[in-house]
C-alpha cells in the first residue's frame, strides 16, 4: 500500500523560528511536492523535486526553501516563520512517468504565533 508520511500532524511555532517539515514516501517515487492549503484558495504549489538534490519553484516559493538529500525524503524549510505562513501543509509524491497521479500525506497543520 502506498504511503506518504509527514513528521507532525500539528505544529505550533513562534514568529522568527526556523521550521522544518519532513515528508517521507516509501514508493520509490521520483517526484515529490510541497503544497499549502488555505480555506477558499485550494492547494498552491510551493516547491517540487523530480530527483535527488533537484528542486523547482512552484507558484508561491517566497519564504520557503526545500531539501532533498535522499530519494524518499523531501523537507520544507521556513527560514524565519511568519504569521502568514500559518496553514495546512501537504506533501505528495508521484512516479516520473505518471506525475499527474499524486499520492498525498495527511498534512501538517502549522500555527505560527
Amino acid at each position, binding site marked *: 500500500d502506498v504511503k506518504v508520511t509527514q513528521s507532525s500532524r500539528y505544529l505550533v511555532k513562534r514568529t522568527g523560528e526556523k521550521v522544518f517539515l519532513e515528508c517521507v514516501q516509501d514508493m520509490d517515487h521520483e517526484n515529490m511536492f510541497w503544497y499549502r492549503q488555505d480555506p477558499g484558495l485550494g492547494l498552491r504549489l510551493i516547491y517540487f523535486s523530480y530527483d535527488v538534490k533537484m528542486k523547482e519553484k512552484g507558484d508561491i516559493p517566497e519564504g520557503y526553501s526545500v531539501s532533498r538529500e535522499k530519494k524518499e525524503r523531501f523537507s520544507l524549510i521556513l527560514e524565519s516563520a511568519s504569521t502568514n505562513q500559518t496553514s495546512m501543509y501537504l506533501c505528495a509524491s508521484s512516479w516520473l512517468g505518471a506525475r499527474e497521479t*499524486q499520492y498525498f500525506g*495527511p498534512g501538517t497543520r502549522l500555527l505560527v504565533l
Partner: protein
Amino acid sequence: AQSVTQLDSHVSVSEGTPVLLRCNYSSSYSPSLFWYVQHPNKGLQLLLKYTSAATLVKGINGFEAEFKKSETSFHLTKPSAHMSDAAEYFCVVAMNSGYSTLTFGKGTMLLVSP
C-alpha cells in the same frame, strides 16, 4: 497557462439524490483533468482522471465525470449521494506537454443530509 474554476464553494444534497459538482478549465494545451477528494482530517485521494482517452470517465465510489471540450467543462456526478460522500472535492488540471504540475481549483464542499 492553465486554470480551473469550481463554480460552487458549497453544494448541499439529501442522501439518495444526485450529485453535481461543476468545474470549468482553461488550458493552452490538451489538458489532463482530475478530481481529488479530501475527507475530514484525511489526505487527498485521486477520485478519477481524464487523459485524452474516453470522454466519460468512471472513478471510485460511483462517481463519474464527462470531459466536454466545447464547453471546457469537467463536471463530477454521482446518481445517488451517500452520507460518506461528504467531503471537499478539488478539480485539477495539468498540461499534457512538457513537465507540468497540477493546478488545483479552490474546492467544493459537499454536504449530505439524511
